[in-house]
Structures are given as C-alpha cells and as structure tokens.
C-alpha cells in the first residue's frame, strides 16, 4: 500500500446534494459526520463508509471517501471484514434503525468482539424508505403503516444492548445536539467498537403519523428512562489488533507438512479388499483403522478409510470401513465387506446387515465377550488377554486381525504405531505389541 502525506481536507463531502425529504434528520447527521471527519484530519483514502439499506443507506454517495453499500442489516459484517483485512482503515457504518433489527445479531457480536468500527445509527423510529413501517425502535403506542392498533412492542434499547455486551464506546444523542460532531469524532478515535444511537425525525412518515416533533422525541427519551450522552467509554482491546498481536507470537511458517509415508515393507495382496470395523464411539475404532491404513501404505499398498458415526461423538456406534488395494483406490467403498471386525455389542448391531450379505468366503473377527455371531462366514475369536487397557483394545484387536490376514508384515504395524501422536504413542505401541502377540 502506498503512503502519502495527509493534507487536511475542508470537506469529505462531494458536490451532490442530499436526496432526503425536507426536514429529514439524515442530512444534519451526515453534516456532523463530515465535520467530525474533517476535524480528525483523516486521509480520505483511509476512510470507508459502509452504508446499510434504507434512506440512510443512500448516505455514502454524498461523500468523497471510499464506500461500501451492501445488504440490509449486514453492514456490520462487511465492515468487520474490511477492518480485519486492513486494520489501518477507519471504518464507519451508517445504519438505520431498520438495520439494527434485521442485523441485530451482528451488532451484538461486533460489540462482544470489539471490532474497531464505528456504527452510526440513524434512528427515526420507522422504515423511511419502504413506507413508514414500524421498526425495533418504534415507541409504544406509535402509529405506523404496520401498527394500525398502535405499536404493541417495546422499543429496543440499542445502546443498552451493545453496552451490556462489551462495546468500548456507546453514546445516545439526537440530531439536534450541538456537540454531535464532537461525539462522532470521539467515537471514531476510539480503537474498539463504538456506537452512536442518534435519534431523529422522519418527516415523511413518522412525524405526520404521530404528530411528532423534537419535543416528543425528548419526551419519549424521558418516558423510556433512556439516558443520553456518553453511556460507556472503556479502553477495551480491539479485536483486529489483538488477533495480530497474538498471531505475531506464534511460530511462523508453522504449516504442518503432510505426514510422509515412504513404502518400505512388502505387502501380500493381489486384489482390493474391504475390512469393516464395528465398535462403539469413543473407543478409538477410527484411530485403529487409520493405524492399519498407514501400515498398509508403509507396505506399498493403497488404503482408504471411511467412517460412519451418528452425530454424537462419544456415544452410539462407530463404524470404520477400510479398503486396501494393490493400486490406487478410486472408490472408497465396497458392496460387501470381505472381513468384519466386531469390537462391541453396538458395533455388532450396526454390522448385522453387512454380516448377512457376507458368504463363506468372508472372515469375521470378534471378541470373546460378544458371544456367538450369526454368519455364514468363518468366525475367529481374538483373545487379547487381560493386559490390554480399555483404550488400547481397538488398536490391539486390529493389529491381531491384520496379523492373521497377513496382507502386510507385523513390522509395518509397529512402524505405523511409531507415527501416533506423542500423547498417545507409548500406550498405542504397547497395545499394538499386545495385539500382535495375541494373534
């Protein structure tokens, strides 16, 4: 990015006059915004106005700054993206009270996150652009084109909401306030999330429908017991800066390399086979399957592993389907398994339809405690002995199963076990050794 010397500008406005109805509050607020920008002596190329939708959403077109005019209610999300990508930019959101309704979720989360943007709410208590419908801020009892009975919904306390959720700077003001430009400048200067809820009049709809005036605006503030002025001003850490600070503390270039598997054992397998393991979630069935797959790859085979599990992770069944082949595997599935390994009653239940599909050529491996298995295939019971801890059963079982199948040498299994994560390696190696021995 290029840097230039900053020449203070006389105005950030362009030549185009505002398009608003006579007496609309939007124009005066934008004038105060302009004054604030001038006062801050910002470089216009470093300022992005992000406008929401509505009459207030037209605002960016009257400024010579950069501008982003997106979707209704989503202005805060674009502003967040801009700030995260280019933290040096000054990002100001211009949003109607309509935007605070449809995009309220983003507002709350931007406040919580304390992303360094300034949100200016043009709060005229109704949707001006679409014909004076009620908004989240319409006062109780007010008449709008969609509250023919008088508004029955309590108005949203925008300031209270963002303040309660950690916003760095919160201010409630009216478009008539003499110090509005100061408050806007102050808000922009704050590094964290800042919001100004500026109350104003929609002369086309809300004002005539409710015979409103500046006085009624002030009276409503009183009735709601809504304080004005700066309601919160805390030095809270800004998100984009905090992210970069934390990131700078990490080891760089730390992209994990893909694990290298150099075939160095020889395999005995002349066709694609499928080995399905049926067990319980949380019992390391998948880890055991992947360990066997690595052992196969270390033996020059091609291996694929597909898992099937319910949405929960630590309960229910866990099924892993292993495909081993002497050539690359394009389809990681099989119509019927050649081999099934049963590790738990849940696994057995899930495997029953597969067992039914297998014939005399199939092989089924099971544990003593699962009892007899109904199948046409040959059943072999693997007795792992009492030594193997519960968490090692799957690994030991799979090691024993593959030793019996003999498609790759037991040393390949031990070599694959040495690739287990540090936290689990010793235990895993022991389980594999026990399994190989038990086979």
């Amino acid at each position, binding site marked *: 990015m290029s840097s230039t010397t900053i020449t203070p500008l006389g105005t950030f406005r362009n030549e185009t006059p505002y398009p608003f109805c006579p007496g609309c509050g939007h124009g005066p607020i934008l004038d105060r915004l302009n004054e604030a920008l001038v006062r801050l002596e910002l470089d216009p*190329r470093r300022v992005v106005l992000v406008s929401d939708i509505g009459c207030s959403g037209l605002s960016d077109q009257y400024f010579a700054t950069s*501008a982003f005019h997106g979707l209704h209610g989503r202005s805060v999300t674009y502003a967040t993206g801009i700030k995260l990508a280019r933290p040096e930019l000054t990002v100001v959101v211009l949003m109607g009270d309509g935007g605070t309704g449809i995009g309220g979720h983003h507002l709350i989360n931007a406040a919580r996150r304390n992303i360094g943007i300034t949100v200016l709410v043009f709060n005229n208590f109704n949707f001006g652009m679409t014909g004076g419908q009620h908004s989240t801020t319409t006062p109780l009892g007010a008449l709008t084109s969609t509250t023919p009975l008088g508004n029955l919904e309590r108005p949203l306390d925008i300031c209270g909401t963002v303040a309660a959720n950690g916003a760095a700077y919160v201010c409630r003001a009216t478009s008539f306030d003499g110090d509005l430009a100061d408050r806007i400048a102050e808000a922009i200067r704050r590094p964290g999330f800042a919001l100004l809820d500026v109350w104003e009049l929609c002369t086309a709809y809300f004002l005539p429908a409710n015979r409103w005036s500046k006085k009624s605006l002030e009276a409503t503030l009183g009735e709601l017991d809504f304080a004005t002025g700066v309601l919160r001003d805390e030095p809270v850490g800004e998100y984009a800066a905090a992210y970069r600070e934390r990131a700078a503390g990490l080891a760089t270039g730390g992209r994990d390399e893909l694990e*290298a598997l150099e075939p160095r054992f020889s395999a005995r397998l002349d066709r694609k086979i499928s080995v399905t393991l049926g067990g319980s979630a949380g019992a390391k069935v998948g880890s055991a399957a992947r360990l066997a797959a690595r052992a196969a790859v270390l033996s020059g085979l091609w291996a694929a592993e597909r898992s099937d599990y319910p949405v929960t992770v630590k309960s229910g069944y866990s099924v892993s389907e292993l495909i081993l082949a002497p050539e690359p595997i*394009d389809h990681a599935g099989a*119509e019927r398994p050649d081999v099934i390994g049963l590790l738990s009653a849940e696994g057995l239940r899930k495997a029953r339809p597969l067992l039914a599909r297998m014939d005399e050529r199939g092989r089924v491996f099971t544990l003593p405690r699962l009892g007899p298995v109904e199948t046409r295939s040959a059943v072999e019971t693997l007795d792992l002995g009492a030594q193997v801890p519960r968490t090692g059963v799957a690994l030991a079982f799979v090691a024993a199963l593959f030793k019996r199948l003999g498609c790759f040498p037991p040393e390949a299994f031990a070599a694959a076990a040495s690739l287990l994560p540090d936290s689990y390696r010793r235990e895993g190696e022991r389980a594999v050794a026990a399994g190989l021995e038990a086979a």
Partner: protein
Amino acid sequence: MRHFTNGSTAIVRGALASGCDFFAGYPITPASPILMQLLHELPRAGGVGIQAEDEIAAIGMCIGAAMSGARAMTATSGPGISLYSENIGLAIMGEVPLVIVDVQRLGPATGGATTVGQGDVQFVRWGTSGGYPIIALAPSSIGECYALTRRAFDLAERFRVPVFLLTDKELNTTNNTIDAGECAEPDAAAAHGAPIREPAPAGEPYRYEPAAEVPPMACYGDVPGLRFTGSTHDERAFITKDAETVERLNRHLEAKIEAHRTALELATVDLEPGAETLWISYGVTAGAMREAVRAARAAGRKISALTLQTLWPVPESTLRHALGGARRVVVAELNLGQYRLEVERLARHQEVIGLNRVDGGLIGPDQFLEAA
C-alpha cells in the same frame, strides 16, 4: 512418497498455496474441518481466520475482506449455502472474487449431517435472485480437491465472481492414499490467470464494455474514493436506474462468464471407439465410475466415460463431443437427476438414463455395471 489424507486437508493446502489470507466460516458438518484447519493455519501464515456469528456474517466478512485486498474463502454445507444466498448475489453484483466451498450433505433442511449427497448442484447455480452466472468446480479425488481449489482462486480473481468448489461429505472426510505430488505446490508454469489486483482508473471501479471483459480491481486503502454497491450502478458505482446503463451492467455480468464458457471447461474425457454407452458423472460418484470403467473394459465391454470438473458454466462443447458417438447415456449422481437435466438439454437422439441414489450411500461400481 505417499500421504494418507482427505479432501478437507487438500482444500486447505490448496487454499494456502493459492495465497488465501482470509477465511470466515460457521461450523457445520461436514465442512467444519476446513474451518478448524484454516483457523489454525492462517494466523501462522500472516492471514486472518475467524468463526463468524452465523453464515450470513461469514460470507459478509469475506466480501468485505476481499474488497480490501484479501484472497478470501468460506466453507459450509447446504444449510449454510441457504444463508449465503443473498450475499452470493451481492458478490456477483459487486464483482467480488470469492471462493465458496460447499461440502454437500444429504438434504433438504438439516437432512443428514454426516451423510453424503450431491443435491446442491442446481442450487449453487441458481442460489441467488436474478439468475446471473457463477462458476462451480467439482473435484472427484483428493488430488483434484487440491488442484481445483487452486483453480478456484485463480478463476475467482480472473473473473471477479464467486467460484464454488462443490465437494461432499465422503470426498472431504474419507482418508485415502495419494502420491506426494498430488498435493504439492505447483511450479510457476502451472499457475494460471494473471492477478487482476491492479488499480482501477481513479473513481471508476467498474467497466461494462467490452461486456465480456473483467475490469481490473482496486482495493480499499489503495486508491482514494473506491466505491462498491449492491444496487444497480454505473461504472463509478453510483446507484442508477438509467435503463441503458443497467442493461449494460447486467449484460456484462452474464457475458464475462458466458463468453469464456469454453475456456472454463474442465473435464476428463475417456472415450472408447465403438462404445455405445457413455457414463457421465462428477465428484465422489466419478471415483466409482473410474473403477467401473476398468472393470467393464477388463470384462471386454466397450464403455466411454466423462468426468465433469466444471459444472457451471455447463461444459457444453465437451458434453456435445462426448455425446456424439453414444446411443445410451447414463448420468450418475447422488440426487434425483439434477445434472441429467443439463445433459438432456444437449442430447439429440441419445437415450439419457439417470443413475441416482438418495439414501445416504454411495453409487458403487457395481451399479454402473448394472445400469448399462
């Protein structure tokens, strides 16, 4: 040397190798591994990765970041694409380069979170109002997940348009063995597409003529007074209803993709002389098709096969070429015949048959062999 890995990891590596430096997403099975891996990698690579409050915010942040010079990506599954919808239109309208990964699961609605499906094929094409074109690529192997992610970033930049990478639960989460070269940095010659991040003429971020040309793109912070809008706009990005300008804008949004339709075609064409049957597939289903082709030929049967990597725009000249000699065409997909519609549109005298599955299982080689 070989790796034992999966599509999610290949996509993450492809993204990083493409210079992806911004990712925002919202957790959803089966796309979450991409979110988790990139949120781990990006701060180490000088980029930014964030879990947004919802999918609308995720894509919104990506759009804002892309307009600020980032190479942005997001990833989700069908329910999330639904929430992206309005912003997909914004990215089309504002000509924003953006990569969107859709790891398909079985729908509709919450559907099968851990179940494979290919039901978003027409959805990604027509997923926003107005009907304007996007680009969608569908890898059919882990290696293609890597290569097409790289291609997606290139195309997004070159065409200033959202590019979808359409994968699925099985492709992303099934571990498989690959040769080391399949997920490696390509050499300079393999990188295609000139970066278009050059400053646009001052105050004119858009250009509608020639209609098929993509204007250079400037970013916030680099030029003064850069404007962006999702409303119909003139070349300076000021809102307009001027009929002539609006028409030029809309024709440009269409032409900049359509005029390059042929150049965008990516497909693996495996035609056998004399074969009367043509199998067509894409994504995970094409893997089974490749196995079926080998089995059929080993059994002495003549068979032709077409794997589509570009789904949108429809690779019409490749399809017409492949359809040419066939009498029977089988279109295999994990939905009830969405892409078959496109094939039927192009078929003249051929019989077009659907091979479909929507029970959460994969179409296997045996089903191909039975179908023809």
